[in-house]
């Protein structure tokens, strides 16, 4: 007991006084334990990898960049506590990606924090939370997003589907929460204008991460006669869905957001769905520019996992650029202004820019399918021997969706 308290006292005092100005600190608030830890860890390593590149090149304005990993257990309330911890340790930048619920809580928290603590503002870099609200109704000057939002991805996906006349009947199956609901509405709306001839034969939502056996759902898909399925499912739901589909001999094409997530490739391989599962991403290692392929190989050699978040590379690169341009890392308003509208060469190739209106990063998107590796393709997933193959590249211009954001900028 006493020990614990002594430790507590020591920590609290230390945490309170740790205001060392030297390194530029970024608080990384994502799950590092429990079910979400795999993706959280992946993100952390990804960003660490990007930061190491900058530090090896001498840092920023003569200062090192340091990432403070903080475990938020994918809990929005806990995330706020951890963000506060990061700020107390001197971080002026928070980055997060896993879960839009957390992202919405964080952006709200940071807006309020900045309002209440003028002169000590904090920026929030979002590398994976895709709720469109973050750059629309709930957009904030302090928030920047490098991942394509759900509507951008759906725009890209439907633009590709437009070119596939063999799609006639589509079944929508999604998780019953805001992201799943968003995917379902977006798919309906966009298909209606782009491919009015497609019949939507089913529109299903199932509870989030609670279903143990998807075979009843598969039976329904089967009964509907669908030839393609659109799903925003991720995690175990995705894996279970694929598995149940393969078991029942369901012959459809899967258009997904997150088939590439942890466990997905294994399930697809097991199900034997060769090149029938598609996903929509901002970078594909097997077809990326050489520099990206080199980094990917380096990353895999170092960490044993794929570089899942090319956007994380973009995030850190643009952050470095903005700090240099602003000439300071401490006046985050200047850094934010430098980021607005900034153009860069995207990690995987091509041009990209940070849209000023809503702080959404715009870049080319890729549609991929999963199957046995082609000749010359280097990277397989989860040791399955199968890998992702680029099917189509959707130009950034074809991914743009308008924003309703009315950004409030500080004076």
């Amino acid at each position, binding site marked *: 007991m006493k020990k614990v308290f002594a430790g507590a006292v020591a920590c609290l005092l230390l945490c309170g006084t740790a205001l060392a100005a030297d390194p530029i600190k970024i608080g990384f608030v994502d799950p590092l334990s429990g079910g979400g830890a795999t993706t959280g860890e992946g993100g952390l390593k990804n960003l660490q990898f990007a930061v190491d590149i900058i530090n090896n090149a001498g840092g920023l304005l003569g200062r090192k960049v340091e990432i403070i990993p903080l475990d938020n257990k994918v809990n929005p*309330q806990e995330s706020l506590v951890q963000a506060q911890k990061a700020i107390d340790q001197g971080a002026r930048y928070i980055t997060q990606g896993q879960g839009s619920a957390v992202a919405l809580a964080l952006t709200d928290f940071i807006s*309020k924090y900045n309002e209440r603590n003028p002169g000590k503002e904090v920026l929030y870099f979002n590398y994976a939370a895709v709720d469109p609200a973050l750059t629309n109704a709930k957009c904030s000057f302090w928030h920047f997003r490098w991942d394509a939002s759900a509507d951008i991805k759906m725009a890209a996906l439907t633009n590709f589907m437009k070119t596939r006349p063999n799609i006639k009947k589509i079944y929508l199956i999604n998780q019953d929460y805001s992201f799943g609901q968003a995917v379902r509405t977006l798919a309906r709306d966009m298909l209606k204008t782009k491919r009015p001839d497609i019949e939507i034969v089913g529109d299903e939502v199932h509870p989030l991460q609670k279903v143990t056996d998807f075979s009843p759902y598969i039976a329904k898909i089967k009964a509907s006669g669908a030839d393609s399925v659109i799903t925003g499912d991720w995690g175990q739901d995705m894996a279970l869905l694929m598995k149940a589909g393969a078991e029942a001999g369901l012959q459809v094409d899967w258009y997904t957001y997150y088939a590439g997530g942890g466990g997905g490739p294994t399930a697809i391989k097991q199900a034997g769905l060769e090149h029938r599962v598609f996903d929509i991403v901002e970078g594909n290692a097997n077809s990326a520019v050489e520099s990206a392929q080199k980094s990917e190989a380096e990353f895999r050699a170092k960490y044993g996992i794929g570089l899942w978040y090319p956007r994380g590379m973009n995030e850190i690169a643009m952050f470095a650029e903005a700090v240099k341009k602003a000439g300071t890392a401490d006046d985050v308003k200047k850094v934010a202004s430098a980021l607005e509208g900034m153009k860069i060469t995207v990690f995987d190739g091509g041009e990209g820019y940070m849209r000023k209106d809503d702080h959404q990063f715009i870049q080319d998107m890729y549609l991929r399918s999963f199957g046995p590796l082609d000749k010359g393709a280097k990277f397989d997933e989860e040791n399955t021997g199968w890998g992702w193959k680029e099917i189509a590249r959707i130009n950034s211009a074809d991914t743009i969706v308008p924003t309703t954001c009315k950004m409030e900028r500080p004076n």
Partner: protein
Amino acid sequence: MSTGVKHFIAFAALAIILIALPKVFVSGSAHTMMSLMGIMIIFALSYNILLGQTGLLSFGHAVYYGLAGFCVAHAMNYIAREKIGVPLPFIPLIGAFAGLFFGALFGLISTRRAGTVFSMISLGIGELVASSALILRSFFGGEEGIPTNRTKFPPFFGYKFGPQIEVYYLIAFWCFVCIALMYALTRTPFGRMCNAVRDNPERAEFVGYSTQRVRFIAFVFSAIFAGVAGALATINFELMNSQSLGAGQSGLVLLMTYVGGVGHFIGPIIGGVIITFLQISLSDITKAWMLYFGLMFILVVMFSPGGVAGWLALHQPLLKGGRIFRLIPAYALALVPMAMLAAGLIMTIELAHRMLVDAQSDGSVMKLAGWTVDAAKAQPWMLAIGLLVCGALGLKLAWPKVREAFAAQSAEVAQ
């Protein structure tokens, strides 16, 4: 000293501690953490009205914390929008009313039975409410929850409650009030009958009390205070989301209360402080923190079912008798193998964690309490296992001595 004076001193001390703490721990995160501790103390104490005082094991207590939190979030948004002149410090009362309402509603169903049936109904209601939270989107706001803003209220004596420190004092005030009220509750006729129902429900019926009614009222009280805690959580985070009423939160309050000690009023207070601290800080030190949580819980259940408070209470007569210092040699003797055992266990877990989880991506070299070790080598493992075995054997030898010393001193005090 009369009991009244004793109580006065105890509560005065509590007030001083609550006021002084932020002056001692000055950082923003310390304030955040202490605010959270205050909330969790109320929550755990409210849970102990059920578990410790009435003998009802609930697996769904977070339902009342969370539902009240949501009601408060909506109420806060409404008040801010309509510009109703209610200052923020009165908001927790809304939480209390929400707790009262939902406690009475679900209490009618669940308190008809005690024992296992009660536990199972609480589990069922918990799952039901948590799952509904994702379906009924307009009230629960989906998985992102309902955000709110605590500064949109008329100032209260000039305070706007933007800074965390002001929120801390708000929470501390309510924490003090709730502790006092819940303590008072244990000393009323009703409080005593809760204990009677816990000890022997049958006999309670034969002295004129309907055990069902006693359980119901206890349940409602428990929900009211859980509601206050939920309201304070909403104020603190300016956000309420569905995770707060799920099984995880219900498990957490059980853990806090049990580790703190269900048999004493102060137990849940201790538990709330310790577990909140560990929950927020342990994950900075080790990724296996959840494993430690589980192990800690099991160890408490197996070896100290009275929790920390029960263990402390065991020493109270010795402290009073002025003989507690006589235990020091025996405890010091036991402390050595105990520390070895703990060190061995922690080392084993950390090494195993390194090898099984991180070695592939980060290599097998790790830092353990300042030392750099290679988990792939045999030496650290041998050291860990050695510590574990020696600690266990040593403890086996030393423990009878501790018991002996304890018994001897207790006997002398008794005389």
